[in-house]
């Protein structure tokens, strides 16, 4: 069922839904960008539906609703452990097709990898419902078409996007039909828009041979990358975290355990007690990250980890393009294969 809403009508629907759901959506944060008088689009719980930003690409992803940048898991005192409270309310998450695909990657790690599901992830995951933000046009840096993540058929309650005649919604949740009908300016068929072509295209190699680890293609990143980890922290599919204990008492036996997001690009990620460290160079870290996104994850879960949202390319202060690195990797894989054929001939 398709509806055309005015912004006011849309806001009213969200206001009504707020009694049942917490709303988690991209929000334009005016003046909160990295540099003076710049804006940033971040995800946040919104109280005013007018804040919801459906026309720009968010600089950070939705994933923090599931795994916040910093989260207290539980409190401990001597032998007692008490789980941190979590709001007992369902959450309506606004996201685009690429991020819906990213959610499946998050699920793979947090719910499927290892023998047990992640308790804290599951706790939120079961409460999530989705609003699909349509993409009438591709944004700069997007390469979802190449990654096959430009479209979702279902999994959302309704979709929203700015159309010529208002905010167009494709309603999947029949229960909301009266609410939408009441607020609708018009009723017409709505098919959520999706990017049919991106300016950025990537060529993901089917198989990455082990020999690519030693390829000189990674070397340039030794000097270019500053290891800030922004690419992974904005990434909707990166899941790594680190545990931290905070102590309330001098003996260290009462306190809280937090988990904070971690990045394989940042110093200290692989440090082991006793001083061992893996992937000391930025080139090795780049290789580790890129191959996970386009090869290693696929070997385990059957699909590429990267969903082509391009946020990593948008955020890199050193203008390192992840998408271009995929293409460089593909070229190196081809060159190696051709080289081998040459040797055989």
């Amino acid at each position: 069922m398709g509806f055309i809403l005015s912004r006011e009508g849309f806001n009213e629907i969200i206001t009504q839904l707020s009694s049942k759901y917490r709303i988690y959506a991209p929000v334009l944060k005016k003046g909160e960008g990295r540099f003076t008088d710049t804006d940033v689009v971040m995800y946040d719980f919104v109280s005013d539906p007018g804040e919801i930003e459906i026309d720009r690409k968010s600089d950070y992803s939705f994933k923090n609703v599931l795994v916040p940048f910093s989260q207290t898991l539980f409190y401990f005192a001597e032998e007692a452990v008490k789980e941190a409270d979590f709001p007992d309310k369902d959450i309506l998450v606004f996201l685009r097709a690429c991020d819906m695909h990213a959610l499946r990657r998050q699920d793979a790690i947090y719910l499927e990898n290892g023998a047990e599901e992640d308790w804290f992830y599951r706790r939120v995951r079961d409460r999530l419902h989705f609003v699909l933000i349509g993409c009438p046009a591709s944004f700069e840096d997007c390469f979802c078409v190449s990654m096959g993540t430009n479209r979702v058929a279902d999994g959302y309650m309704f979709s929203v996007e700015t159309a010529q005649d208002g905010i167009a919604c494709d309603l999947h949740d029949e229960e909301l039909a009266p609410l939408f009908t009441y607020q609708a300016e018009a009723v017409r068929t709505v098919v959520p828009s999706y990017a049919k072509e991106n300016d950025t295209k990537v060529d993901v190699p089917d198989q990455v041979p082990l020999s690519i680890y030693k390829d000189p293609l990674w070397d340039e990143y030794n000097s270019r990358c500053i290891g800030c980890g922004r690419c992974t922290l904005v990434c909707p599919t990166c899941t790594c975290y680190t545990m931290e204990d905070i102590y309330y008492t001098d003996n260290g036996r009462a306190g809280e355990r937090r988990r904070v997001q971690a990045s394989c690009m940042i110093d200290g990620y692989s440090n082991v007690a006793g001083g061992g460290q893996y992937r000391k160079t930025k080139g090795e870290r780049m290789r580790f990250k890129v191959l996970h996104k386009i090869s290693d994850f696929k070997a385990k879960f059957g699909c590429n980890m990267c969903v082509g949202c391009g946020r990593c390319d948008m955020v890199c202060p050193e203008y390192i393009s992840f998408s271009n690195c995929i293409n460089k990797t593909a070229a190196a894989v081809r060159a190696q294969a051709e080289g081998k054929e040459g040797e055989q001939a």
Partner: protein
Amino acid sequence: MSNAYVPSPSKILDIIKHTEKEYTFRMEFHGSVKPGQFFEVSIPKYGEAPISVSGIGSDFVDLTIRKVGRVTNEIFEKWIGSSLLMRGPYGNGFDVSLFENGETVVVAGGTGVSPVRGVIDALSRTADAKDKHVIAGFRSPDDILFRKDLERWDGLLDLILTVDGAPEGYQGNVGLVTKYIADLPLKDAASARAVVVGLPPMMKFTIIEFLKKGFQEENIWVSQERKMCCGLGKCGHCRIGSKYVCVDGPVFNYTESKLLID
């Protein structure tokens, strides 16, 4: 479903001091556990850390802990009788039965002895223990761990205890573990098995020696040490390629581990 992250208190039954830095905690534990597995132990003032099982009893596990960070000045012995929060065991561990028949060589360096201590114990009890060889290497005589075990094993199987370096006058072996492999008195290297645990360079060069001696790749086993924050395959720190050391390892056959590049 239960919350796998929530640790349970476990009583500290005893604490054995090995060196100024390394201590073995004997922790109350009822349940099934294998050598090479590990526990996530909440160490006061340090945080949660993966600790290899260095000994197994019917109602306890031994965990050998190295003092680091803010714990450095703590007097561990004071803690006997109190408890620590821990969870586990995690990881695949060693299948000890694989090594009990025929010729086996265990090479362990430093704290790498912890995960294979149970393996060596089992080997020392086999009927053909004389065909079992252990090369244990430590940085210096002061860094030698599990001294009592080493003395005990010395009579039961073929033990080579060596240190990388020692002050003048030291009576024991001095040299890297790799130098002893070529001269091991093996009947048939092609069917012998090897277990290698230690720092990455030590493992790399030890395996090279084994292959030179004629060991088959599929007969070599290693245990990997990586940063691990969960033990559950979630935190990502221990991933190498498509493998997670915490759930797919830490014990890997060399045919598998040789494909894992950090």
